């Protein structure tokens, strides 16, 4: 578990370190581009996630979004 908490701590420190620059609403054009979406290909991600969860033990979703048994 140690590694896990270290990473969390690092994440927190990283946020503080970069000291987020204020971004005014009119400066958010780039952030609104499709390429900057958290997931630019959500449909493809769905099919990939389904494959990964039925072939890997550590890829389970924590959002309760179905997916079936994958018992093959």
């Amino acid at each position, binding site marked *: 578990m140690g590694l896990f908490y270290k990473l969390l701590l690092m994440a927190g420190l990283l946020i503080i370190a970069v000291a987020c620059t204020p971004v005014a609403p009119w400066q958010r054009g780039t952030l*609104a581009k499709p390429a900057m979406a958290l997931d630019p290909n959500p449909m493809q991600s769905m099919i990939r996630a389904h494959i990964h969860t039925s072939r890997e033990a550590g890829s389970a979703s924590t959002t309760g979004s179905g997916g079936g048994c994958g018992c093959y």
Partner: protein
Amino acid sequence: MAVTKRNPASAALNALTLAALALPGLMAGPVCAEDDEVDIQYGHYQEGARNLYGATSAFKPIQVDSLNTSARVKLADRLRFAFNYIQDTWGGATPMATAPLAFGGNGNYTGGGNYTPSGTVSGATPYLNNHNVYFDRQLNPLSQDASGNFVKNTQLVHTMSMASPETRRQGDFKFGYDWDESAVDVGGGISVENDYESRFGNVAGRWDFNQKLTSVNAGVSYTNSDTHAMIDHDAQPYIYDASTGGQSYNATYGDISHIVIGNNGQRTLYGNKQDWASNFGLTQVLNKNALFTAGVGYSYSAGYMANPYKVVQVAFIPPDQTGDILTGTTTALLEQRPNQRNQLSGSLGYIQHVDLLDGAFHFNYKLFKDDWGITSHTFEADWVQNLAAGWTVTPKIRYYSQSAADFYNPYLISNQAIQSNAVDNLGREIFVSAIHPNNGVQYYSTPLGYVNAKTGQLLNFFQQLKVEPVNKTVPFNRAALPKYYSSDQRLSGYGALSGGLTVAKQFAKGISLEAGGEYYTHAGDLKLGGGGEGSYANFDYWMANATLKLDLSALQLANGAMFGFNDHNDGKAGEDNGNRHKTHKGHHQHQHGNAPAGVMFAHTLAKAGDMMVGYRYMYDSESGGMLHNSQAVTDSTLINNACQGNACYVTPAAMTMNMHMIDLMVAPTDWLTLMLMPQFVDMGMTFRGLSGAGLPSDYNSEAAVLHSEHPHATGGVGDTGLYAMFNLLDFQSHHIHATMGVTAPTGDVGIQLRPIHTVDLGFIHYGMQLGSGTWDLKPSLTYTGQWQDVSWGAQLNGTIRTGNKNASGYILGNMLGSTAWLGYGITPWLSTTLRGLYSYEGTGQYQYNGTYYPIGPMDYLANYGRQSVDMGLGVSATVPEGTLQGNRFSVEWLQPVSDDVNGYQLRRDGTLSATWGFGF
């Protein structure tokens, strides 16, 4: 032309509006990406062949075809609704166990229930049980060379098992409500497959702070899943069952699962699992070009978490052996997993835009840990490159590594006999009657003969002949095995590297197409820090997907407003498109006539440059008993007459078919409309044994009959249609057009059943293949007309198979259809239709050119095709205003009035058609 006219003003507005639309969604992630969007995706997964070390698998590796339709719409200003429908059909070979190569698990079946463990073709049925295996004193497996000498052979290999096609369906929904700086989503759904059903619900919230530069989200979910797996006929003899006829040994383990034995000896494993999951996430805008995400997730699962089709190979070696060679007996046990699992994950993400290249870099890392001993790391990096003309290219790379579960074991060795002779408390061996082993009477042996343990009476010679005393046996001691064990490669230690490319093209008018591919390789050597599973477990797969995305909001913005399909379109849409109406006077009125949902090719597009996207669904059901021509028939008639001179053993009890078609139309000129129609088909069939038929005398056909106790299912891409529609006549309110088309044989006609009872069952029933296998010509002629609120139409259509036979050696019959309908507009946006339909389909010809075992009427092409008359009642609605304005929905039910089948077939229950269309 309309597009160029609109361009300068609307492009800027478009960009601004898209940016504004995207901003709130940016924080919430994909859950509520763009409002009012319809996405349709097809995906294909294909696994590569496994290394079987000398054996060549006779079966194709597993492949999966998926269809995913997703719609997101705004119901009100702040209320969102999303719906997903997912369907997967899979079939093919996967590992069911792992064993030393010396065990010969992939042995060759040589007929009559005999195996040769060293065969060159992986046999129909894995060779897992009750044969002798050899070890040296260090417990290394030994194999025998050509001259019979034992040599050490530690090579492991998967034992492959083949699955017949199966289909899973999932429907889920989500309601979302947005406040200015927060949002809540509530969703749920259900996933159903033959042997597994899962229901789930979830709630998630999002809060924005710091002028939306920071947002946090949190969610909880609950999933309840039932397993009801038929332990297949083949596996039964391999799965050790200690108490003959009683509860299976495998099921007595805890109370999380149990096996029920059916009348015919069929065993069904029942289990239930519950998952509670939660997640918490943070998204932080770092500057105008970068953002950062972090998340944690925790889930707790309880219940049956094993895979009912995976077994663990156990070698039982009796301890009291002398010499250097130890002899053991193998058996396969259902895998046993803990009934609880705690999973914890943490993730970090970073997205950076690079202005110079107009691209964005995405990086994600996920750490996962559970109390089964598995730790995994996932690294993902994407580069999203925008190119000119709406193209986007995204190369992706992913690396995954996991450690093995504590209870993962490729196979087990147990230092005890698989069974031993029972002894009483005085150390005497117990004997029972061979004839009545369970009558409770026990004997022990003395120099004078066998003595009844209860009465002390010595059996005389004749009594002994009658009793036939045999040793009472007890199975191995369960407690001497590990508590949990699994050889499922998903629980082993390994790494996986994958790379892919996604190409997307944004067209005008809010349509985009996306196509992607990924190649994935799984290898023990790729595990972080080494120590992964041996190379025998390596495998690879490739995946391809194609997605059509329709952004309804953008389509509306691009168009100003949509013209409707409604004939009585006198609303706002008509005004906005006044120009079109003037230029193409009367044209568009009847071309988009309100034809019933079940009529294809009913309209052409109004003018050059118009496009339409539609989705067409058809459900067909047959379960009304068997017919010969139009008469119901008895089982004995079927047995004697329905199978072309052979006996019939089973009859179809019900057949269902679902077709999902995508309708893409474009008009290059005013008089021509081109149409592309890919389709996705799935079918299911259940059977019933014919009373009085008994079982076939030959072993192979008997296996086919037994297999029909399972429902059969197939699914995947069907034949793809390409059509050209020509406007022939446009006179006042009368319109005639001709359609010439062809369907390409993209549907599989080589689907086979899984081998069972050591028999390769070969081709599945003709009607369950996904296409015709031939290039088919599809001409049609359509007339439509209209007077005030009344509309009407008629169509003649045909299907002509070309070529002599398809790749599987047969050909389906030609088809002819004629239909006429009458429609009435109840309101400007709602109309109803009544129609009559006559259809004819000829019988098929020839037969499969490979192995198949005909057992019932559905296996003879003479029993295909029919003449029928149907009456149809339909309703159509066109959304008159709002963001969905111009979307048209139609539904029609076709009720058979008369059915005259060729040969012997099921009576039809009816056909449901539903369509959605959107023109722009």
